[in-house]
């Protein structure tokens, strides 16, 4: 439903046209490619495929935002950038969804991500071979390296001259951000004291002007939508470029069904303003993230595919992973002022790789992370790691010291488990679609990793001269649910995102991840999308799909 007060309801967008009428559709008669979801993956695909001369339609459930009038410097009001439709959550560690890990509207999650732009390491693609945990990807780092290069160049990622971990050591296309915030300074100084290497974070945030966009002004509201357009999002970069190349974007349009014609997909059905419409296409790409993509596949079941589309393996919806993302808030004697500047400006991957001296496999990234009052207060009140609550006088007194707090955040690898899954519930939403149920429980390895990380975060806070006061239990990002693999019996798509079962149905985005890695996923999402785009352009020109 449309629940964003004051947003202009143009739903049809193509070169020279912004219209509130479905009569103005460009590809109503059919397109080459229909992309469901205008987020990190959908934006890259739309641009690359349109540039190659294909007729592309992107269908997005949420609005086409205007940063100047739709975004605000306000936490509470900007929760609307997340997917707010109710999902049921279950398991021992039910996930917080919405603004925490999803996007709704053109640009998807990139509209409110922190812009941290990391590559996965070589080891991330073969955890089974190396550590006997998780599963190997059907590709290796080298298959993705040139796509990481391409995406980072294309959006002018800023970063350090030398990046010490993983296979890529820089330099980044744009110079590192400076100055960095007090919280990031303190983090780096503390790391140095402890002999932990740290860097200024590689960011999809400009350190100098680029394509008419200004460098960051340290407003600090990355999670509420960037207003000066200094931070990358699909909304201001890939989608407008795709439109300029001939693509059509349909916003406020919720895809409700994938249509089949025999063994092939013929298009999708979507709902707009209470009416149903059809979009035919030679190829359909689902880029609706970790919950909506499996949900659509499962909900589109028919007599030929009774368990849902592309689900002969039974893996659709399974193996979803968040990152463990606990926070340690430490109180210092001097002011830190967590609200100032880009929220994340420093990090370390010192603990990223498996270490035989630890009692768990894989690892994590630690991040110096700013916090605004609503996020901090709600978390230290109601999301405490020990399950207790902080309220009344104690909460108010903690928050009176808001400006004295520093914060360190975990981005920890969570291993895939088939019980962590998206399934369909018996409840229906306003479109008559089953409401998804998202089940998640940490496994033993995940818990050990978290315990280790919390100890390190506390050490860092103490090395700042602070006292760790609040440990918050949180998650970030979602991955998996339609994992890629070589074996059609245990994966949903091949290495290019093509479903094993239906040749003209593709899946793009974090849902195809096999493992979660221990760092922010957006760079990998976009690099994979660029790789899929290359493959599709080649295959479609040969009429192979």
């Amino acid at each position: 439903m449309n629940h964003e007060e004051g947003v202009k309801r143009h739903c049809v967008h193509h070169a020279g046209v912004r219209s509130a009428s479905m009569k103005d559709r460009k590809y109503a008669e059919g397109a080459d490619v229909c992309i469901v979801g205008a987020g990190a993956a959908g934006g890259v695909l739309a641009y690359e495929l349109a540039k190659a001369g294909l007729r592309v339609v992107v269908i997005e459930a949420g609005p086409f935002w205007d940063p100047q009038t739709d975004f605000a410097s306000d936490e509470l009001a900007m929760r609307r950038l997340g997917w707010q439709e109710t999902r049921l959550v279950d398991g021992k560690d039910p996930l917080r969804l919405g603004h925490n890990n999803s996007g709704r509207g053109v640009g998807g999650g990139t509209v409110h991500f922190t812009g941290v732009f990391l590559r996965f390491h070589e080891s991330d693609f073969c955890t089974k071979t190396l550590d006997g945990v998780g599963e190997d990807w059907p590709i290796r780092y080298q298959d993705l390296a040139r796509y990481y290069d391409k995406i980072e160049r294309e959006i002018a990622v800023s970063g350090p001259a030398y990046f010490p971990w993983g296979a890529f050591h820089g330099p980044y296309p744009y110079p590192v951000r400076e100055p960095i915030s007090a919280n990031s300074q303190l983090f780096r100084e503390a790391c140095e004291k402890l002999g932990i290497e740290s860097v200024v974070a590689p960011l999809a945030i400009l350190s100098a002007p680029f394509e008419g966009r200004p460098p960051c002004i340290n407003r600090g509201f990355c999670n509420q939508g960037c207003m000066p357009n200094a931070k990358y999002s699909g909304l201001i970069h890939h989608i407008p470029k795709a439109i300029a190349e001939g693509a059509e974007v349909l916003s406020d349009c919720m895809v409700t069904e994938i249509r089949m014609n025999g063994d092939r997909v013929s298009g999708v059905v979507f709902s707009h303003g209470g009416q149903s419409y059809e979009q035919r296409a030679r190829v359909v790409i689902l880029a609706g993230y970790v919950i909506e993509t499996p949900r659509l596949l499962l909900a589109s079941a028919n007599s030929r595919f009774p368990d849902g589309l592309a689900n002969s393996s039974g893996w659709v919806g399974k193996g979803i992973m968040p990152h463990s993302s606990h926070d340690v808030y430490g109180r210092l004697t001097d002011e830190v002022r967590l609200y100032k500047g880009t929220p994340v400006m420093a990090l370390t991957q010192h603990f990223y790789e498996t270490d035989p001296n630890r009692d768990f496999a894989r690892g994590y990234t630690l991040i110096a992370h700013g916090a605004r009052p609503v996020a901090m207060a709600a978390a230290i009140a109601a999301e405490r790691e020990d399950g207790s609550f902080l309220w009344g006088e104690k909460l108010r007194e903690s928050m009176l010291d808001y400006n004295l707090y520093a914060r360190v955040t975990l981005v920890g690898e969570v291993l895939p488990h088939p019980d962590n899954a998206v399934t369909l519930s018996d409840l229906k939403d306003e479109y008559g679609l089953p409401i998804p149920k998202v089940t998640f429980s940490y496994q033993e390895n995940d818990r050990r990793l978290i315990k280790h990380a919390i100890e390190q975060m506390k050490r860092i806070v103490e090395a700042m001269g602070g006292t760790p006061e609040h440990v918050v239990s949180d998650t970030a990002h979602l991955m998996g649910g339609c994992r890629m693999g070589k074996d059609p019996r245990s994966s949903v798509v091949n290495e290019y995102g093509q479903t094993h079962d239906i040749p003209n149905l593709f899946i793009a985005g974090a849902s195809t991840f096999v493992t979660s890695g221990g760092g922010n996923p957006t760079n990998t999402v976009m690099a994979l999308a660029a790789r899929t785009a290359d493959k599709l352009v080649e295959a479609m020109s040969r009429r192979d799909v």
Partner: protein
Amino acid sequence: MAKQRRYPDYDVWKENDKWDDHTRKIVVKRKAAQVEHQFFDPNQALLLQAIVSQLVNDYRLEVLTFIVQHLDESVASPIGEAQRKVGVPPKQELYRQGLAGVDAESRKRYKSGFLSLKQEEQKAVLEAVSQGEILDRQAWEQLSPVDFFKRLLYDAVSAYYSHPLVWSDIGYGGPAYPRGYVRVEKGLTDPWEAKANEP
């Protein structure tokens, strides 16, 4: 003695002419909150206000009015809840049953509704609800008191720390567009930011 504000002279609202229009419009509404509600009846609204007042440890009517208005709007709204734990009732039921449960617990313990309890008694009732150690099991048959407490605390605290008076209390610089922050490093502040009272 209650802890003092570090920035007694700071008023973030004084900066509002430097904010963008959309942000200003959002924040100014909070300063003039309504007392008419769509979902809660007047008794529920009063009860909710008293509970929230204990949760955030604040008695300023203008702040509490805004919190209750915000809760009322979000409970009444058809906008989704982002997530709802299996077994937890939908938001309207949760609030309706939870408020009734708090009042029932007050009567069970002190033979009197929550509103007429002493501060310490109100705190004791909420403590019991937060721990799930309620005496009136019947009132909580379909709703776990801990689930209710967690949801209410999260929602109330989110609204409380969105009020500009509270931003001023804690020295939060608040909205910063279009001007941004120039001095972000350790020990530096822009001229308009809160300055602590030196002891």
